[in-house]
Every structure is written in structure tokens, then in C-alpha cells.
């Protein structure tokens, strides 16, 4: 379980995170929902140790953030992080060199699934293809958790469908997924838990199926209530 307790962070003078607390379980797909600038990326980066929070605690399976943790948690950022001049295969080789959890067989599988050309340079890829490659680098690691920052934003519809298929497949199964998005759209039926953010705090966190069973509301309905009401 990933636990975030009372996270505070300032960014350029603004209080972006004002006491964020939530948990993301293993084996579940948790989604952080909020408008642009709500601090979703900042939360993920804080969990991954890429930016220091002002205060608050982050625990992954009870342990604080540290280098050993990077073998257990993978991060798929919303922009390319592999050097533009590298080929796709170079990036994969890099991961293979440095991570013990790298699953080369799965990486090859995903190359085929996403129809990527391993000799192509990262700098030449379109936005949709870059997103698929970033996803490949994250999913090919045998980690317990995988964090994704806006995996669908700015992606064309067909690439989106292909990426969405990943969530129903066994690539995700038994892992804990924490993703962020500002548009839930047709993704609703894929997530287990939704966490709504606003003004730097968690407005509401709920299990989606339970919400449908007990109140007959979709996630979008709840969002409308919380953000507009």
C-alpha cells in the first residue's frame, strides 16, 4: 500500500498541496482526479522522490522513500524522459543495465503490442507513440506499483484505446496502479478507486463500484457535485 499522509508543498509561492492524505492499495487501480494545476503531478513526483515536500509523510509498504524503492515502484511521466538522440532500443538497454526488475521478454511483447520500431529515435516519435514508449518502459519493470501521470492526455483516440487495453490485461493485474487525469471520460469503468482533489486537499475518496451500487452515481456525477456544487 502507498500511504500519503498530510502532504504539504509550496510551488512558486502558491500552496499547491495543503494537507493531502490518501492510500493506494496493491491490486487496485486508483485515480487522482483534479483540474489542471491541482497538484496531481506534484503528488506523484513527491511519492517518487523527485521533489521534496515541505512536510508530510510518504510510506510505501511501510517504508519511506529511498533508492531501493525504485525497484518496487515504476513511474510513467507525462513527457519523454529518455534522451532524444537515443533509439528506443537504447532506452530499453539503459533500463536493463540499471534495473534488476527489468523484464526484457515483456518489453519485447509490448514493443509488438504497441507496434513500435526499436531502431527509431525517441526524438522522432509523435506524442501518442512517445506515450506508448513511456508506458512500455514503466510496464516492463516487474514492480509492485506503477504510477502514471496523465497517461491519456493529448493522445489521439486510437492510441488511447490501445493504451486503455493495457489496464484490462494481465500486465496490470496484482499491481497497484496510481494514475492522474483531469478528464475521466470513457475511463470510468476501468478504475477501482477515485480521489477527487481540489484546492490542495482531498475532497472525496471513494470506491467506484460502491458509489454505483449505493447511490447509483457515476464518477462523473460525483465530480459534478463536488466541483460545481
Amino acid at each position, binding site marked *: 500500500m502507498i500511504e500519503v499522509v498530510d502532504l504539504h508543498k509550496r510551488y512558486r509561492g502558491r500552496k499547491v498541496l495543503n494537507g493531502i492524505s490518501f492510500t493506494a492499495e496493491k491490486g487496485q487501480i486508483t485515480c487522482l482526479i483534479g483540474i489542471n494545476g491541482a497538484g496531481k503531478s506534484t503528488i506523484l513526483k513527491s511519492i517518487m522522490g523527485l521533489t521534496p515536500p515541505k512536510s508530510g509523510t510518504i510510506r510505501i509498504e511501510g517504508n519511506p522513500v529511498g533508492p531501493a524503492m525504485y525497484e518496487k515502484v515504476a513511474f510513467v511521466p507525462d513527457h519523454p524522459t529518455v534522451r532524444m538522440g537515443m533509439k528506443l532500443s537504447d532506452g530499453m538497454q539503459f533500463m536493463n543495465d540499471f534495473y534488476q526488475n527489468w523484464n526484457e521478454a515483456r518489453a519485447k511483447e509490448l514493443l509488438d503490442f504497441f507496434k513500435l520500431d526499436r531502431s527509431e529515435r525517441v526524438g522522432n516519435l509523435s506524442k501518442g507513440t512517445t506515450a506508448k514508449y513511456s508506458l512500455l518502459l514503466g510496464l516492463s519493470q516487474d514492480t509492485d506499483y506503477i504510477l502514471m501521470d496523465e497517461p491519456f492526455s493529448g493522445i489521439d483516440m486510437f492510441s488511447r484505446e490501445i493504451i486503455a*487495453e493495457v489496464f*484490462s490485461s494481465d500486465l496490470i493485474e496484482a499491481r497497484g496502479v496510481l494514475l492522474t487525469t483531469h478528464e475521466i471520460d470513457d475511463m470510468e469503468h476501468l478504475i477501482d478507486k477515485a480521489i477527487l482533489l481540489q484546492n490542495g486537499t482531498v475532497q472525496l475518496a471513494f470506491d467506484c*463500484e460502491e458509489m454505483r451500487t449505493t447511490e447509483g452515481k457515476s464518477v462523473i456525477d460525483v465530480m459534478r457535485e463536488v466541483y460545481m456544487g
Partner: protein
Amino acid sequence: MNEGWTSVVFNNRDPVYLQVVRHFKERIARGRLKAGQVIPSRRELGALLKINPNTAQKAYKEMEEQRLIITEGNSPSRITEEADILRAIRSELIEDAVEAFVVSVGRIDVPVDELLELVRAKYVKERARTNHSEGGNSDD
């Protein structure tokens, strides 16, 4: 075995796993799923219907509780062979449809006989059409 599981369109207000169960029931009632037929595994179902594996898991559990499917040991799950359950499914779906129909028509003032005549005509026409498009594969 895996054809025909075209992506079901889910409405987001009803629990997805119950919609999956309902989809199964419809297929059984329509004869697309026969008694004792093997069904896709949890994982395969998730991928086929493009849903979260947890939802597929929940749907399975629900169907097992309702004795819709049977899982024996490590063999793949199968549709139940118990006739009364199959019959009950059929009745449940018919009743649900009738209920919905009656509720929507109930507001209009129309004598029962005229209503039944309309229903019969419509029904016969509809059956003829679907029989024709399915190449006569009906088990009326």
C-alpha cells in the same frame, strides 16, 4: 468460444460487475451461451470486455454466488446445467422487460386488449426479422 464477446457498452451509473452478470444472463436467455458451456477465464474476460480485472473478479464471484456458473477445481468455469436456474434467468429477464414496458406504457390510457394486440404484432414481426438475419438459428 471467444467470438461474440464484442465490447459491451457500459453505463457508468450501474455497478459494472452487475452489468457484466446481466450480460451473461442475456446471452444465456438468448441461447448464445448453452448449459454447461465453458466460459472465458477471469483474465480473458477482463481483456475481452475491456474492464478492470477486479471488476471481472467481482462479476465472477457474483455469478458463482447466484449459481450461474460452476468452477470445479482448476478447470475452466462453465455455465450451470441446472435447468431450474436457467429457466429462472429467462423468467427474470422477461419479467424485467415487461416491468419496464408496463411502467412506461402505464401512463398512457389504453385498453389491455388493444395493447396486447399491438404487442403480439410487434413481437411476431421482430422475431421474424431476427430469425431471418440469424439464418433461422432460433430455439423458439
